[in-house]
């Protein structure tokens, strides 16, 4: 047990979360990460809509997508759903 973990007197009752889910970098679960072929990608945003963790990002300034690897669990749904086969899952 690490020293950062709180004792029973400090934490809220009943398992109420006292930190937001974004504090937990679930991206470290993955063994595969998405790699996009920018030539094939037509920015249709299907991957953005299908990602269960909201780890596909859209930057309106540069009008391009990206992957937030802090939260990408490497499930590969984006790669399967991509109509252009522009995403490949590769070992980290």
């Amino acid at each position, binding site marked *: 047990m690490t020293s950062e973990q709180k004792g029973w007197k400090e934490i809220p009752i*009943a398992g109420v979360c006292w930190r937001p889910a974004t504090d937990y970098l679930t991206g470290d679960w993955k063994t595969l990460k998405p790699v996009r072929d920018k030539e094939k990608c037509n920015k249709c945003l299907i991957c953005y809509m299908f990602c269960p963790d909201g780890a596909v990002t859209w930057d309106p300034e540069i009008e391009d997508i990206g992957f937030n690897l802090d939260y990408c669990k490497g499930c590969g749904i984006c790669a399967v759903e991509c109509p252009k086969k522009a995403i490949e899952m590769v070992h980290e």
Partner: protein
Amino acid sequence: MAITKQNLLALNGDEAVAYAVKQSDVDVVSAYPITPQTIIVERFSEYVHNGEVDTEFVCVESEHSALSMCLTASATGVRVFTASGSAGLALMHEILYVTSGARAPVVMAIVNRALSGPINIHCDHSDSMVERDAGWIQIYVENSQEAYDSIIQAFRIAEHNDLLIPTMVMLDAFVLSHTLESVNVLPDETVRKFVGTRRIPLVRGHRGKLVPFKLDPENPITMGPLDLYDYYFEHKRQQEEAMQIAPRIIKEVHDEYARISGRKYGNGLIEPYRLEDAEIATVCLGSTAGTTKTVVDQLRTKGIKAGLLRLRTYRPYPVQDIVNALENVEAVAVMDRSHSFGAHGGPVFHEMRHILYEASIHPQIVDYIYGLGGRDMPQTLIHEIYRDLQKIVKTKRVEKPIQFIGVRE
């Protein structure tokens, strides 16, 4: 505070419970019928139908769903009641733990009925005894008057912000549930004032702010998500801490209620009966205590120093109260209305002997398993137990520490 003027009604135990719930300003009731609890829910659904209560009554398809419904309703911060017993309670088993772990102060009436098989609808305590470890407060009542009084108290106890422990009130099948009794009921407004509205404590939510401990779209919180080896143990430790505080709260609520109703049940945790100078005593829960008190009175007229200790609260277990009440008694017989097969006696006996191990002087303690499946426990059999105790005191020897009484050989 003066004792409130009350109405005397003819109610059976189930009706007394339903009446108490009706007066306690309950927001949600969800239950599934099981004999001998059915009358509670039937009466209450009549109150709902007649518009006598402002309660949402949710019909469900099983007890598992009934308690799940109650748990989630309670998580929104409202007052919730349900009732069950026997196989119905067994089907709730999983959700009992979820409810206590979620600190949802649901109040439940249990009409104690044997567990199958063979199938049996009559009284014993095997259904609630197996749930003693589920993290609920357990109160066993002696008569229908106490059932009425205890249900009202249970809302105050369960919802106390230092506790937030779901509470079950046990009454014996048929002996209480279906037997008409004179029950004094308080005026509606007195009960409503006593129970008040449910108060909600603050917890630190995921946005780092203190927010009300309830599911509320305005202040969203996440309750009871995955809790592994890193924090589950801490949450269980918190539950135990609340249980350690519970005896004090149970006593306080009991005393406050006594001041308005004029009715006391010992100190709210245990009820000693003619124990001060007793040499021999029995220990029991529930309606058998009524019969035993009569036997004790008969023995006392013959100069036999007999007494009784009734456990009203079984969880939390009132350790020091029991030790103080029994340590000067020479021989004690525990009456267990359930059995743990293959164990050394019944569950009440286990803990009774266990805690007295630490007492300065300990009495001889024996166990009598009785009344399984509604088998009657008449005065004659209770006299037999006291005769055995007299023999133990005289000979200073226990021949059979565990016996089954009232069963044919």
